[in-house]
């Protein structure tokens, strides 16, 4: 399996470290126990498209959000985690303004 890092290009997967589901978000401090258990311990494990965090430790040291099919290892999208977070933040801001 190879990942195409947006900064370094196509690299072997041994350059990267896996960190799991990229869609989980930290709940508010006052959210109940159930929300925190879900955040810390419970993960979906889809057979199909999975958005996940990878760290390019041997390359540019960027965190990446990779969309991969867990049945075929076909990678359909790689984006910088920073860009994903910024886009999310902007979307939230827009929603708040509206």
């Amino acid at each position: 399996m190879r990942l195409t890092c947006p900064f370094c290009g196509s690299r072997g997967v041994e350059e990267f470290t896996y960190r799991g589901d990229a869609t989980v978000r930290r709940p508010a401090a006052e959210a109940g126990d159930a929300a925190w258990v879900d955040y810390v311990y419970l993960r979906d494990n889809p057979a199909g498209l999975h958005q996940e965090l990878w760290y390019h430790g041997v390359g540019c040291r960027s965190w990446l959000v990779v969309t991969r099919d867990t049945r075929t290892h076909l990678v359909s999208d790689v984006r910088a985690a920073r860009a994903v977070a910024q886009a999310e933040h902007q979307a939230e801001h827009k929603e708040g303004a509206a």
Partner: protein
Amino acid sequence: MLQAFVSEGIKPFIDGVVTFGAGHFYISQSDKGGLVFGGDIDGYNSYAQRGNLPVIEDVCEGGMALMPRIGRVRLLRHWGGIMDMSMDGSPIIDHTPVQGLYLNAGWCYGGFKATPASGLCFAHLLARDEPHPVATAYRLDRFARGAVIDEKGMGAQPNLH
């Protein structure tokens, strides 16, 4: 995904199972003379049912660190299988919220080796509807109760175990 390997048949020289904890490698020899060995998992979610080269290299490096004399033995075949990784690296033997449905899962890659003990504990649970004294901690709700069994002290991430 966990991979296991079988080499060509050679004369007997390993008469037990050798485990190398520092590098994560285990090896035994079959009656036909083939070396049967394995090591680490991929570390990422996978249903692909096939192995990959970086892990083969990693396992073989572990083997060479432990047992350099096997370096010239040729690989015959290898196998890749899905592993049921739990968040804390320990299994779950418990009731479920569904009446009559019991769970014996999350064995990570220790399932085969633990089968005699896990079978006994699971049978005890099924027959008496109460956990075997050895397995009382392997509860499904241990995560929500903050009672995780993190034997290696690695944290609550399946790829760390």
